[in-house]
């Protein structure tokens, strides 16, 4: 405890770094994935390609992606962008598939009646299908948020510091407490993000109580197809 107090500044500054490094991929991942997912839902060929591509991406160890990005996109090797871009890719891969699945899961009756009321294809997507997919998208984002926060720490191995620094440093000087502080910090960030997403869900999707309504949504919420890479 006294260690934590003595090093509070460092821990807080690493926590801030950690938050930044995870917020950007989470937000960016969502913004990019939704349109791509909508396209994937509409065109079968695209969907097949994207599903395969995201499958391959999941199999790429995050460390390898962090290390190799500079030589692929020409960033500096210590650039936090390497971590941000890699995690954004994971988030996009996961959310594209979730979005496509969620849109495909909207009740056909609802789509038919929206058509019948005269919504255009685009209007239907924005006003009907996406809102109805909200609970599933939210569930996907919760998994994205938690796994992104956890993966940021691997960046410490390539010199992009976050709470993961505490793991390496504690490891090198036989100091489990330091590592534990890092782990707890990471979990707290993840839980706060998760809580914020749940609150956003309550606010934006007041008609849906995802944890209480029918069985299908619950299944989707823990859908193991939603992978934490």
């Amino acid at each position, binding site marked *: 405890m006294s260690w934590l107090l003595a090093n509070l500044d460092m821990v807080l500054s690493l926590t801030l770094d950690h938050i930044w490094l995870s917020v950007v991929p989470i937000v960016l991942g969502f913004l990019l994935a939704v349109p791509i997912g909508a396209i994937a839902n509409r065109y079968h060929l695209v969907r097949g390609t994207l599903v395969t591509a995201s499958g391959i991406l999941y199999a790429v160890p995050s460390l390898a992606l962090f290390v190799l990005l500079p030589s692929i996109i020409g960033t500096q090797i210590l650039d936090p962008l390497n971590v941000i871009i890699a995690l954004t890719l994971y988030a996009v891969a996961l959310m594209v598939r979730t979005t496509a699945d969620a849109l495909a899961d909207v009740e056909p009756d609802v789509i038919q009646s929206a058509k019948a009321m005269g919504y255009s294809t685009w209007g239907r997507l924005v006003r009907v299908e996406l809102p109805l997919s909200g609970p599933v998208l939210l569930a996907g984002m919760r998994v994205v948020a938690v796994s992104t926060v956890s993966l940021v720490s691997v960046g410490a191995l390539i010199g992009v510091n976050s709470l993961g620094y*505490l793991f390496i440093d504690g490891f090198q000087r036989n100091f*489990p407490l330091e590592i534990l502080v890092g782990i707890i910090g990471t*979990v707290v960030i993840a839980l706060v993000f998760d809580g914020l997403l749940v609150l956003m869900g309550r606010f934006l999707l007041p008609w849906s109580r995802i944890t209480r309504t029918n069985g299908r949504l619950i299944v989707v919420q823990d859908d*193991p197809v939603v992978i934490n890479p």
Partner: protein
Amino acid sequence: MNNWLDALAWLVDPENLTGPGGVPARTVEHLGYTLLTLVIAAAIALPIGYLIGHTGRGRGLAVAVSGGFRALPTLGLVTVLALLMGLGILAPLTALVILAIPPLLAGAYAGVGAVERSTIDSARAVGMTEWQVFAQVELPLSLPLAISGLRSATLQVIATWTVAAILPVGGLGRFMLDGLPVRNYAEVLGGAIVVILLALVIDAVLAGTQRIVIPRGVKALRLASKRMHA
């Protein structure tokens, strides 16, 4: 692009293909670790998951614990456990088992949860014992989601065992952690390619298994509902 050529050259270099540190030996190690991890994780997660699915109790707790496990950073777990448990395979194994539990657990209880309540109800009504309800109805009908969970766990475990190579363990992560400090990116990338290939092959095998073990009637059910939606 040079990296890729170097990596390919590294991959076909006979020196990297033989001996205890060669790609085949490391692949076998990696597979062994992965299998061991999954067996232990499944032995923990599946009974609990199916118990939750069968009784319908403890679901909230399971979701919370799974979420918490998911949030645990594997790198942190590996390092702290290595300090507490010492060298050897036990520390990374524990960390990876913790990583593999949430998807397996979710696959099991969500799999049972996805079975029509009326199907289970009628199985009980015609006189199945609780065990028969589980073995003859819930288990076979939960397989699609349960195997999805297994696939997800497998992909994560294969990819994440690489991080454990900061400890003196074998497996394909060796190439990455050995190549990283000396910037031998051909080795890092070569190792990563093998990891990816391994993951894809294993995933394909599991996808095939999934196709085989999904009860035929369930497939017919899906087709029927697809026709309805078309």
